[in-house]
């Protein structure tokens, strides 16, 4: 299996605080990797360093073998790394369909073709397919700001998949989502993985969600990788139990 993402020796220090302190892991093509750990252990900071939102203090990030450390988020996105944020991030004034078109439009053509070409950048059909896949067809024309929280979370995830990315990083996709929606979300993510071979990394606190969704889990504590393995192995690992109970 090819390694899509390889993180080695990643460090991010804020003054004296070592938020991420030498993290190494990799993501293989077609897998769903869970990234778990107690609050403040550096999961989101790791994401932000991988994605260029933060400049890492040290370490290297490779995408398909190519070093991408310190690239700008928009460049990384166009290379095929997509993400969702811990807090909800959709564009409330745009419709559901427009949100998805936006998520795809910068991956096609040039600035000039985006100015002079068709309004929808030729993406209406693709957006509607994605909307259909996430079972939101009845909401396609609604403004995203008018959707329920759970629906916005679904849209948020759909946007991350819109441009057919190599790798998607999901930061707490299940946070604040009710149980029914949670089932839908897990179902759709699994379908995305199974049917389209999408590869993703999920940060999540909801253990049932992680254990049933992910094929492999990396556990972080205090800025380091504590354990790694299949969900059931990790769950039995004494160091992991200790880290969780210790907090």
């Amino acid at each position, binding site marked *: 299996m090819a390694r899509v993402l390889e993180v080695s020796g990643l460090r991010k220090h804020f003054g004296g605080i070592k938020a991420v302190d030498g993290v190494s892991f990799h993501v293989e093509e077609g897998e769903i990797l869970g990234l778990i750990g107690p609050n403040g252990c550096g999961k989101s900071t790791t994401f932000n360093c991988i*994605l260029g939102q933060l400049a890492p203090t040290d370490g290297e990030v490779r995408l398909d073998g190519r070093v991408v450390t310190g690239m700008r988020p928009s460049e990384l996105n166009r290379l095929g790394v997509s993400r969702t944020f811990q807090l909800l991030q959709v564009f409330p004034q745009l419709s559901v369909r427009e949100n998805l078109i936006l998520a795809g439009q910068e991956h096609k053509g040039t600035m000039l073709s985006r100015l002079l070409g068709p309004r929808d950048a030729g993406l209406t059909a693709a957006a509607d397919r994605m909307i259909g896949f996430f079972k939101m067809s009845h909401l396609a024309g609604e403004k995203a700001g008018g959707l329920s929280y759970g629906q916005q979370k679904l849209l948020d995830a759909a946007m991350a998949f819109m441009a057919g990315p190599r790798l998607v990083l999901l930061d707490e996709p299940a946070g604040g989502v009710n149980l029914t929606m949670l089932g839908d979300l897990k179902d759709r993510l699994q379908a995305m993985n199974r049917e389209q071979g999408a590869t993703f990394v999920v940060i999540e606190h909801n253990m049932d969600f992680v254990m049933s969704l992910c094929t492999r889990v990396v556990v972080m504590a205090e800025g380091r990788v504590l354990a790694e393995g299949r969900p059931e192995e990790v769950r039995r690992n004494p160091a992991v139990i200790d880290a969780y109970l210790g907090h």
Partner: protein
Amino acid sequence: MTRSLAAWLAGIAGAAALVLLPLALNRYGIYILSLWAVMTIAAIGLNLTLGYAGQISLAQGAFVGIGAYAVAILTTSGFPFVVGLAAALAVSFAVGWLLGYPALRVQHHYLAFVTLAFSTLAYLVFRNEEWLTKGIYGIVGVPRPSVLGIATAKPLPFYYLCLGALAVVSFAVWWLVRSPWGRAFVALRENPVRALSLGVDTRRYTLMAFAIGSALGGVAGAFYAPLVEFVDPTPFTLALSLNLLMMVIVGGAGFFLGPFLGALIAVLLPEWLRFMEGWYLIAYAVFVMVLLVISPTGILGILDRHLTARRTRAASQARAAAKPVLNSEAA
């Protein structure tokens, strides 16, 4: 479909009124209408920067000044108006691009201060660089151009020239805001971090928003100079920038028709309230304050909310009719 048809009919009626109205007006009335067309162009530019892309600028008046001086200097030295217009466009685009750089680092009121400083700087250049601008004495006798062999020296033909410019600018901006660029501008306004993570090059779009918005300020200035036929620094103080900002906000920032309405109020209100003499500014100020309390999104914001509420009602009625058995999830 009926909604877009209604919009088209309203647009055609509006355009017909703008063409026919001046035939019934005196010289001064035509001047006011021309001034409206010119100020609308500048406000459309600011609406692009502020209303769509969300980047505040207190320097739009300075760009009107740059455009006006470009045309005044070039046409009084014997160059044709088109050359002046091209220079106004190019210079204000380039300066606007440069002014966009601070916006990559600072936002909101900090950005307002940076642009305010630029506005003051531009005014000082207009006033003090006498070798170029003739300082406080101003440039007298800016000629009105001939277009396709038709002289526009008289008020009515010149009004039609301004109206034509407004039509071209309106079409271009209408196209722009409906293109993927418009969507990227809105994304920039609503959530730049998320936009960046979706591959939107927010840096380039921010600079473009500033450059294009400023260029339209320059175009407005290019027509302002031959309209008043005399260019000196006094019209281009911070007051003009603030006035243009008012036009955008009162009309409705981020609405395509906002600047048209805002400029109409800003240009015509002093005329309507002439009987109040010096008090009209107070009346205007009270009007703006009350408006912004009622609707922070301007006059078109009120209309938009009304239409959205009606559409939502209609949609929920349609849903209720389609699905007579209520289930708890549908709510």
